Structure formats: C-alpha cells, structure tokens
C-alpha cells in the first residue's frame, strides 16, 4: 500500500511539473494583465457598489469613470467625464461641461441625466451610500442640456471637487429599471455592471478574481491590453508568491517585502507617500498626560531616526507635526530630537513618579504585522529607559474601534500607536483633533482638547481666500508641534511592485487607492 502511494505521488508530481510549466507559458502569451489590484490598504476586495466604496478606486476606475480626477501627483483636479468645470466665487454653484462622446458599455450615450441620477442615488443613505453626508449640501442638480450639469449647494463647500473624484457615474437607464428598495443588494453590481470606462466587466468568480475585457468603443481609443484581471489575495504574502512565480504582473507589497524586489531586473518597485502619519496618541482622559512636559519627554525618549533607519530601512520619513507634505508644513517646527537625558529631566520636573511612576501602561494598536511588532518593542525599550513602562497590545480593527469609540474604556488605551490620514486635503485633520469632534460626533478618539489648536483649525477651515489657506494650516501645524496632543513619529512610504514586462503603467499609492489618472488605455506588454 505504501509503495503504490509513493509511485502514484511521483507520477502526480511529474504531471504537475508539466502542467505547471505549460500554464505559465500559456498566460504570458495572452495580452491580459493580471494583478493584485485590491491588495493592501488602498484596496477593497469584494466590493462592487461604487456608492459604498471607501477604497478600491484603482480597480473601479478601470470600468467606471468619475466626473473629475486628480492628476497622478495628487495635486490638481482635472476633468474626466467632465471636460471642464468651474464654480462661482462663493462656492455654491458648480458647473460641469461633460464630454460629448462618452458612451456606456451598452452603447447608450452618457448625458447630464445620468449625473443627476447618480447624485440622487448617492445622497440616499438608505442605499448605504457613504456619500450621503458628504453631498448633503447639494440641494439641486440642474441639467439645462444633455452635456451640462450644474450642482447647486445650500452652503459653500470648496471640497466638492475632491469628493467627486471618488464618485463613479452610474447609468440612469439601466439602474432605474431595477427596484430602488434593496438596490445595494442587487446582483447587478457583481454580474453585469455598466460603466463608461476603458474596460468592461466580464465576470466575478467569487473570492477568486474579477475579469474585465477591453472596451473597443472607448472614447480615447481601444486599450492596448485585451483584458485585465484582478486576483484576490487574503494577504500580501500570497501576492508576493504570485509575483515571483510570474502569475501576476502587479501588486501592492509591504515595505519590507519591497526591498526583496529592489535589485531584481525583472521588476520595478514603485513607491510614494502613504499620506498616513503614524503617531503615539495620548488619551487625555486617562489622567497622566495633562502636563505638556511629560508628552515632550515621551517624544524625546524615542530615537525616531534609528527606528526609521534600522527597522523601516528608510521606508519612512520623520513627521514633526500633523501635516507632513505639501505647502502646509512650516519650516520652523521643533524637531524634539532624541535626548533621553533631557527626557528624564522633564519627567522629574513634572513629577512623573507621583503621576504614574512605573505602573505599566497599555499601548493599543490595530496594526498586526511583525514589522510593527518590532517597532512597538523598540519603542517599549526606549521608553523603559526613561521610566515610562508601556505594554504593547496588538488587536484587530474591530476590537480597536470598539474600545476607542466605546464608553468608559479609557483604562484600556492610555496610549495608542496608530496612523491618521493627513492629506492631500489638510482640512481632514479637523475631525481628529478638534475638541468638538470627540466621539460620537467625530474621530477625536484621544479627546484632545487644546483651545489654541481649536482656534487655529476653525480659522483655517473658514478661510475664504484660497491663497491664504496654506498659511492658516501652517499655523495649525505650529500649534500642534508646540502642544503635542499626539506624539508625531513618521510618515511611511507605500510600495507597489510591477513586472518589467508592463509599460505605461501609472500607480500612485493614494489614500484609499484613488482616484487619479492612471492612463489605463496605454498599459501594455512590451
């Protein structure tokens, strides 16, 4: 019995070797790109409803399109389905001039009726649309002719174009034929969706992959690729294996994995700003962080440069305040250099022994990678040297949110190690550090309450003159740097790996994966 099994297994292995080799060759000869487009924090595996999309825009933008898009550098908003757009100075009327020749995948023309319909759907909270609150200011969408749409707002909102870079236009004719009740649960989204993008939907193999094929009637011309396939991976380890075995041509990878591809001529490594600032948050309600000397001491006890160099291997840049890039970061911030002796002095002056002494303090985090385990261990050792005892605790996202947004849990998270998206639009910081934005109103989970900071934020958000806004936000950064409601640590880079066979590929690790011009029509194999 054992011998038969051995012979059989040898035969099986031989057969596998042959089929395996044949399969790899068969895929490369077809003009279809396969990638892990929803791997990593910018992806949203298994989501097909653009109204519920908080991420995954890289993939959605292949078969749907938005009115406007950022350029690849995430600096300027340009037109997509809207050839151009303008607004009145009060920012209460936005006029969009639509391109004349956009067609849906079923052949019908894209018109302003579709725009009005999409906005109406997006404002419907019952459909699970996350745009409902963000577009609440829109009171009316006027459609004077088939290629002009005017959005009228009840209140001024300068960030409307930024919101629209994520809203996919949806077909009025196809969707109004479906029952409105339960539209978000309709299988239409994952079996036969219709968009205007360069590729059209073919099929979704549950939990396995999504297949698109080229849209030959696309207004900018037929794409060079015959099709694109999005393979799903539970984690980036599987994606890395598939990249190395040549089965996929692109994926997001973790920063330490990217280093392994760096010197390999078969791959290009693409990197960019993650726009997520990592910090240690001080829970203002935990009772031991009220003296600013203690907060400064903690920051100065940590050797950020050493951690960035040794553990991140350079895949991060130091962060001195809430903002880390663009024109909202002033040059005169205090770097709080690594100085454990000074940190001990500050703690002594503040009376740390009486405030907390050597009682261990939990430091909660939702990051679960071995890399972050190493980072938190290093921080623990450095803080231990000055007399602050912390115990890292890594939990999953649901537990983390349950604890920090719950009531009476403050003893469980006197400290957190977390990340916050700080751009590209700087106003986003308000919801994290304004004292009026404590849960349940907003995301100020650390209950930061710094009156000067509130004042600076309110002034910046209310500033009507676009040329004065950067200076206002720089003031926010200065107050943050002085008062330290959080201890800012670093901002990481995000990495993607592309096979050297692919040309004209554009990828920016944007927060939430998009939406920016990715030039999918020009992607091609060499």
């Amino acid at each position, binding site marked *: 019995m054992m011998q038969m099994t051995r012979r059989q297994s040898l035969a099986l292995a031989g057969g596998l070797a042959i089929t*395996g080799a044949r399969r790899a060759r068969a895929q490369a000869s077809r003009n279809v790109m396969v990638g892990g487009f929803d791997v990593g924090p910018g992806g949203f595996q298994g989501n097909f409803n653009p109204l519920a999309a908080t991420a995954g825009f890289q993939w959605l933008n292949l078969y749907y399109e938005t009115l406007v898009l950022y350029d690849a550098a995430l600096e300027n908003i340009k037109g997509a389905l809207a050839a151009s757009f303008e607004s009145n100075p009060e920012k209460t009327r936005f006029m969009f001039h639509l391109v004349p020749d956009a067609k849906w995948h079923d052949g019908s023309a894209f018109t302003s009726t579709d725009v009005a319909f999409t906005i109406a759907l997006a404002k419907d909270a019952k459909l699970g649309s996350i745009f409902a609150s963000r577009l609440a200011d829109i009171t009316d969408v006027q459609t004077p002719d088939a290629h002009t749409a005017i959005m009228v707002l009840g209140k001024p909102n300068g960030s409307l174009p930024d919101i629209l870079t994520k809203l996919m236009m949806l077909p009025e004719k196809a969707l109004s034929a479906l029952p409105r009740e339960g539209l978000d649960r309709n299988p239409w989204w994952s079996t036969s969706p219709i968009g205007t993008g360069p590729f059209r939907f073919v099929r979704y193999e549950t939990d396995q992959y999504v297949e698109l094929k080229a849209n030959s009637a696309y207004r900018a011309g037929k794409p060079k690729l015959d099709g694109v396939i999005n393979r799903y991976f539970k984690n980036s380890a599987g994606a890395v294996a598939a990249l190395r075995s040549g089965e996929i041509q692109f994926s997001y990878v973790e920063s330490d994995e990217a280093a392994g591809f760096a010197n390999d001529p078969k791959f290009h490594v693409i990197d960019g700003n993650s726009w997520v600032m990592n910090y240690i948050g001080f829970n203002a309600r935990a009772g031991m962080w009220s003296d600013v000397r203690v907060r400064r001491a903690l920051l100065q006890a940590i050797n950020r440069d050493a951690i960035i160099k040794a553990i991140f291997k350079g895949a991060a840049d130091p962060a001195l305040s809430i903002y880390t890039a663009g024109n909202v970061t002033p040059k005169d911030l205090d770097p709080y250099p690594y100085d454990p002796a000074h940190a001990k002095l500050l703690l002594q002056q503040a009376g740390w022994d009486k405030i907390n002494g050597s009682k261990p303090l939990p430091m909660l985090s939702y990051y679960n990678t071995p890399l972050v385990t190493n980072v938190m261990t290093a921080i623990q050792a450095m803080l231990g040297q000055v007399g602050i005892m912390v115990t890292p605790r890594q939990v999953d996202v649901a537990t983390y949110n349950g604890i920090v947004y719950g009531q009476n849990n403050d003893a469980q998270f006197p400290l957190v190690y977390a990340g916050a998206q700080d751009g590209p639009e700087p106003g986003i910081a308000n919801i994290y550090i304004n004292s009026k934005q404590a849960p349940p109103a907003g995301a100020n989970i650390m209950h930061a309450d710094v009156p000067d900071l509130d004042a600076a934020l309110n002034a910046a958000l209310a500033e009507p003159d676009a040329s004065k806004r950067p200076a206002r936000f720089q003031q926010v950064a200065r107050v943050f740097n002085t008062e330290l409601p959080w201890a800012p640590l670093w901002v990481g880079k995000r990495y993607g790996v592309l096979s050297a066979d692919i040309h004209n590929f554009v990828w920016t690790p944007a927060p939430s994966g998009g939406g920016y011009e990715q030039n999918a029509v020009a992607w091609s194999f060499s």
Partner: protein
Amino acid sequence: MLRTTLRHLGATAAMLVALSVLMFGLLRATPGDPVAAYMDPTAAYSAADIAALRHRMGLDQPLPLQYLDWATAALHGDFGYSTQHDRQPVRAMIAERAGPTLLLMGSGLILSTALGIGAGILAALRRDGPLDVALAVVGSLGVSSPAFLTALLGLFVFAVRLGWAPSGGMTTPGVPTTIADLLAHLALPAAIFAAGQATLTMRYMRAAMLEVMNHDYIRTARAKGVGEVWVICKHATRNALLPVVTLTGANIGAAVGGAIFIESVFNWPGMGLLMVNAVEARDYPVIMGSALVIGLFVLLINLLTDVVCAAVDPRIRVR
C-alpha cells in the same frame, strides 16, 4: 434502532438551538460591531457617516428582537444578509463555499487517513527500529510546525521555487475551467493539509496497535501458527481502529471549520476563510449562519463516528 436514531436527531436539533443561543450571546460580548470592523482607523468618519452605516447594517434594532427575528427566519432557511459590502444572502454565500471546502477537506482527509494508518501500522510492526524512529521524527515535525508556517513554506518551496504548482486560487483566471486545472490547484493545499493530519493519525494508530499486539488473542493466534501479517490485519488493526475512527471523526469536524491558514495562504475559497473574514468584519449573520452549518456537520459526523465504532466493535452499545 429507529427510536435511538430519532432520539439522536432530536438531541442534535436541541444542540443546534443551544449553539445558536450561545453564539448569539458570545457575539454580543465580542468587542466591536460591524461598524467598528468596517471603519478604517486612519480615515475620518463623521457622525452622519456612522449613523448611515448603522442603519444600513440593521444595527439600530434592540437586541432581543434581533435574535427572535433571526431564529424565525433561520427556521425557514433564511439566514439573512451579510453586513459586508455587497450584502449577499448568507445562504448563497455558504452554499458557494461548501463545495470547495468539501473538496479540499475530503481529498486531504482521505490522503491523510490512508497515509496515517499505513505509517502507523508499519511503525508498530518495526517498533524501535530505524524506520520507527524516522517516522517519529517526521511525525514530530508535522506536529510542531505551525499551520501558517507549513502553508507558507509549502507555497514558497513548491509553487515559487520549484514551480510545481500554481501559487494559489482554485482555478486559473481568464481561462475556461477544466478538471485538470482544478486538480492542479487542489494538489498543493490538499497535500499540505494531509501532511499535518497524517502525523496525528499515525501516532494514535501506532500506539493503539502496540497496546493491542500484546493481548492474549493475538498470542493465541500466533501460537496456532497463523501467519503474522494475517494476524495483524485481522485482529489487531480492527481493534486499534477504534481510537483512530474517533480521532478521524473529530478531525473531520474540526477540518470543516477550516484549515484556515491553508485557505488564507492559498486563497482557497472555503468555509474557513468565510468564517475568518466574517469574524474580522464582525458580520454577525454570516458568523451565525456558518457556525450553525458547521455545527450541524460536526454533530452529524460525531453521530456517524459513534455508529461506525459500534459497527467495528459490536460490544459497544450505549444502553
């Protein structure tokens, strides 16, 4: 016999109810709810966003009302809708994953049981010889390796370095599905799963055989001049199979819940991955539905195991 079976089925039904109540309570005691699982901690959600999410996920109803709703619907086979993005009906989701799970577990278990029993018998026959020690080392290796490590190593050695197998998934994307394609994708995860399970079976089989080989009836048979191989095959194996059958039954039950790491490393769309994703997302309807289905399967397998044990050894009857 019929009365016993009916009694067992009745007990099974009662157990499922108890399981569902227990699960429901446990889920409510878990920190975080579907909204907490959905929120990306680095992104900014306003109160209005969160309220919309809660409404969409059906979380604004009071607790006891939710269980009764769920239970009545479940009796009609309706397990509700997933709270995750595309809001699929739970029953459809489970039905889709049941097939791949059975395929993976089935082939893995057949392989591992055959391998384990064979190796266990051999090890017992050649006790303390070089083969026995070698098998003990291999067995220890199988048991001391964490599941994710075996899966990752298998992936990188066999799929990436040697190129013998595809690196995950159930079928090749973009090409029409064939049986050969499916088998090629099944081979590596099933083999890794079998390797882990076979070592357990082997150890128990060997120990039970050694215990039985010294019994009187074996010595009698030997003394009567019956051939050694025949003696073993007929007498010892039959009685040593009892713990192995029980163990295999327990393994099947646990296996359906998922070779979670194998499924997640190889992206095999089975029940294990469904359950893990649902727990991460605190997707209560899916967790309840799949826990119930898996629970039903485990109970039936336990029942079957008892019946098989009674068939193997007629002396065992629970009176």
